[in-house]
């Protein structure tokens, strides 16, 4: 194989030399987009197609593995054939691919410094769902929930608001990265929380008169029997300065647990009073804890910069469906001088991944918002410097093997979010992330849609947009009952 590559490269060089006389060797990496220079990728990912950022006339790319290689040419972008790519990755479960980029620019051939793609046998969950929406302010137009097969470029629409009266749709989340356990909220006249349990869809009205709002941010219990949610009264404010955009905060926020079997909602007084704001609750992997963000009351919006959320934890008894009566603080916002949001526990129970911003509770419009990782066994925190960028990095989710996480990053322009995947090796070290590969490399340059809440799953969800259309137009959503004390299970 190596002989073939040498012959090919020799041929290329011969051809190039014939035309221009010589090849310039550049010691710089090629200016490719997306930035796939020296990234770690799973063995089951689709080809990492890319384009050259500067204008070139011809492009020759060699992807050389330990056993096989692929050669691709193009004008200014490359599309690696899917079959050849899969064969290359399958040739060895763990290998380093060397990518050599040769371009013809103003009649001159330039060979850039080769870079590597480290292929790890730790595969990533093969399906990714996300919401596609234009990054607006208060008004929305078209919204779609989409499921992408990560091993190919296939996409499937899970929900489309064109079929549901234009209503707003929130993001789609899984329980245990299991496609048979997922949910999302649809707002509007016929809306509700659409819960998928083993393919059976239910539309639940998660609000009672005792609650301040419908369920907002939520997470499944590992058993799939419960969901923990925050209820939030959300206020948007528009910044006037520079390129700052919106500040979104809660004027009230509580925490509830919903039993999907009995449709009973429970809470605790300390989680539903007006002295503090609770948000982004998640269950621990063992299901015995609820992690959530909490901030003390401050007058808003005047004291918005003092609004800082801690990470707290309270116990949960899955047998009786009861919440503990007190909470611990795991991450003190005052001491850390930041504000936490979007908690996500790793499926192996070892880590807690979250977003830290300077203040507030809506990190997607905070450029400084970065991901951070807490080792729940040691309490150590990792600022994930290899992962974060200068723009907002948030809305993350784990792969079921806890070796990969996906997150939405607004890197590049600060407005449009894209899914990035980061590898966490066996030592807990995070590697440089890479953007979701696209068939057409110009997709990210041209799209006016932003990717929200990318979530990984092990399989395809058992419904599509038509099922959601049907359930949306059903007149009634199933009601829930609220109780603040210990609930009785109802058959």
């Amino acid at each position: 194989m190596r002989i073939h590559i040498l012959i090919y490269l020799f041929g290329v060089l011969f051809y190039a030399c014939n035309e221009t006389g010589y090849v310039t060797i550049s010691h710089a990496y090629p200016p490719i987009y997306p930035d796939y220079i020296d990234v770690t990728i799973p063995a089951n990912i689709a080809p990492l197609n890319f384009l050259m950022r500067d204008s070139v006339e011809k492009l020759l790319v060699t992807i050389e593995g330990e056993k096989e290689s692929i050669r691709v040419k193009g004008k200014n972008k490359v599309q690696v054939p899917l079959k050849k790519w899969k064969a290359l990755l399958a040739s060895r479960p763990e290998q380093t691919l060397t990518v050599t980029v040769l371009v013809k620019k103003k009649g001159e051939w330039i060979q850039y410094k080769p870079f590597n793609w480290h292929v790890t046998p730790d595969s990533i969950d093969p399906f990714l769902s996300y919401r596609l929406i234009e990054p607006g302010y208060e008004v929305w137009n078209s919204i779609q929930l989409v499921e992408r097969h990560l091993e190919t470029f296939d996409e499937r629409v899970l929900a489309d608001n064109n079929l549901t009266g234009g209503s707003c749709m929130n993001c789609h989340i899984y329980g245990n990265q299991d496609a048979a356990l997922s949910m999302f909220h649809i707002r509007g006249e016929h809306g509700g929380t659409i819960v998928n349990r083993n393919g059976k869809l239910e539309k639940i009205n998660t609000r009672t008169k005792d609650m301040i709002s419908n369920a907002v941010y939520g997470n499944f219990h590992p058993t799939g029997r419960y969901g923990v949610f925050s209820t939030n009264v959300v206020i948007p404010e528009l910044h006037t300065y520079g390129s700052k955009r919106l500040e979104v905060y809660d004027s009230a926020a509580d925490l509830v647990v919903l039993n999907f079997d009995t449709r009973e909602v429970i809470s605790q007084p300390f989680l539903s009073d007006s002295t503090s704001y609770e948000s982004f609750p998640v269950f621990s992997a063992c299901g015995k804890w609820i992690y959530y963000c909490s901030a003390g009351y401050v007058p808003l919006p005047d004291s918005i910069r003092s609004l800082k959320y801690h990470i707290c934890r309270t116990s949960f008894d899955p047998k009786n469906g009861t919440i503990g009566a007190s909470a611990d603080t795991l991450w003190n916002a005052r001491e850390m001088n930041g504000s936490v949001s979007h908690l996500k526990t790793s499926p192996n129970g070892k880590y807690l991944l979250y977003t830290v911003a300077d203040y507030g509770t809506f990190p997607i419009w905070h450029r400084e918002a970065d991901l951070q990782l807490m080792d729940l066994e040691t309490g150590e925190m990792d600022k994930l410097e290899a992962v974060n960028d200068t723009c907002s990095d948030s809305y993350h989710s784990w792969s079921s093997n806890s070796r990969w996480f996906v997150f939405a990053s607004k890197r590049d322009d600060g407005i449009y979010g894209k899914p990035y995947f980061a590898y966490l090796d066996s030592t807990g070290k995070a590697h440089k992330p890479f953007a979701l590969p696209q068939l057409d490399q110009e997709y990210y340059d041209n799209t006016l849609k932003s990717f929200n809440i990318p979530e990984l799953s092990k399989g395809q969800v058992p419904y599509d947009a038509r099922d959601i259309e049907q359930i949306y137009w059903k007149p009634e959503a199933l009601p829930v009952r609220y109780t603040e004390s210990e609930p009785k299970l109802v058959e």
Partner: protein
Amino acid sequence: MKEKRHNASMLITGAFFTALLLYWGLVYPEHLVQKEQMQLFLLSPTYLKEHLIIQGGLVRYLGEFLTQFFLYKWVAAAIVSGILLSLFTATNRVLRKLFGKPHTLLAVIPAVGYHFLLLDDYYYLAGALALSLTTWAVSEIIGIREPKRRLKTTLLTIPFIYWMLGGTYLVFILSVSLAEWILFFKDDSRKMNKQQIVWAIPTLLIVGGIIPLIARNYVILDTLLQSYLSHSYYKFSFILPSPLIWVFLALPLVILLQWAFQSFYPGKSHPVFRYAVTTVLLITIGFGLYYVPDFKEEKEMKYDNLVCRQQWEQIVELARQEPPVGEQGKLALTLALGQTGRLNSQLFQFNPGLHDFFIAYQVQGMAPLMAQEPYFYLGLTNFSQMLCIETIESTPDAAHPVRAMKRYAENCLINGQYDVAARYLRYLRQTLFYRNWANHAMQYLHNDDKILSHPLWGKLKTYRVKDDFYFQFDQPETMLVALLRSNLKNQMAYEFLISRSLLQMDFDEFLKYLPLASQMNYSELPLTYQEALAYVETLLPEIPENLAHYSISEPVRSRLTAYAQTFRQGGHKEPQLMQKLYGDTYWYYVHFRGNDEN
């Protein structure tokens, strides 16, 4: 005789086209111009492909292609008139092929119907094009003499029309079915036999009913309604507007009417009958022309379109001839006065109001394109940017209005968000008429110095606020003060602030900000401020030292004296007289309009 008939037909055709052309060119052009602003037609293969993969996509593509030329009102008028004329000609042809010499005026009904639809901003040009092409298709089908071939061609044409033109395939099926029925009963040589007609018409109807269901199940992801209709006719996809149904039914109805008339008068119809039909039709059309157009909206759009083209002088001139009455026209005038340096001297010539400076922001409904204009020119870039996106997002058809895209890109350039600006400029580069502008704007990317040297963007970049605060829609004074705190050269912000204090008759505020007039490079204290100051002086027992140095010209003082004299001598009871003599002064506003306004 034949030549005479041909000449008469040409005359009618010519008169119809001329009437339409004059109507759209002179009476109602602004709606057409606005249609161009509300779309983003891209000359790219991807854009064409995106249209070809949906039902009715081709005609929408063609409609958008033609609508891009609506930038020029006479071209717009000619295109619309041409399409409606084509519809009229095709209808006439259908009637002629079915009945021989038809009553020509009946053939105008579908075209006039679509004319009325196009007066409404929510109907696309594509619909008229689709109906016209469908009517031509009906005419061609009827022309096929051999029944079996005719039926086969019809069956093959149905899916083609459905996919290319959308819901007008139903018009095609209805019209062809009706034509077959009429031919059968007329004992025409083209007629089907009894057996053929018995199964042909149900087959056509069943095929028509099934095709969208198949498409919806296997090809498209759309609502049931739009699977039949397509998104090519009306901007709101969740509604089937009844006027559209009636216009679509017009062709089969016209065929039916002609059949009824000919059955009633098998030979040449009685002149009285012909005149009666003509009169009824003309009265109906006249009634429609009076009631259907929204001339108030047309006037608003005229102002809005002038703002879009930054034709400030024309706005002031127009306001002198036809004072604006709607909120957009009034805002346009305020902006024009500000942009031409007249806000400080001529505002009170135009019966101003406190609401003429901004359009209230509402989350419900579509944010008008005009709403972001004052924020843009004041230097409140973020808010202009937000309203551009709100306009885009609230557009009922999820189109990306080119005007909002362009303005958003400008805001991003001013704000230094170059990567986002580039994304929008790349879209504009794919258009026919904004390509050069976008290419030029591309040269400003990542170059702050170049932006600062731009006559408009440079100025607005220096106007941006330097303090961060949350925008309060109901407290414009706060943001105007913030703008001035950031840049004292922001003359429009200053004049908005002073004008609003004068309109509210808040003299404390007026006097508080009056000293800043010295920062504005005025050659003398502007006329309105002199009038206000002269009035304030009459309220004070003596003129304080800090006001004494303001120079009030002799003509202003003399006019105030004359005003006071007239007012005291009974003028206070004769507002019309006072308006005639002093309607352009601040004093008249204070005494006769201010209290109502506040």
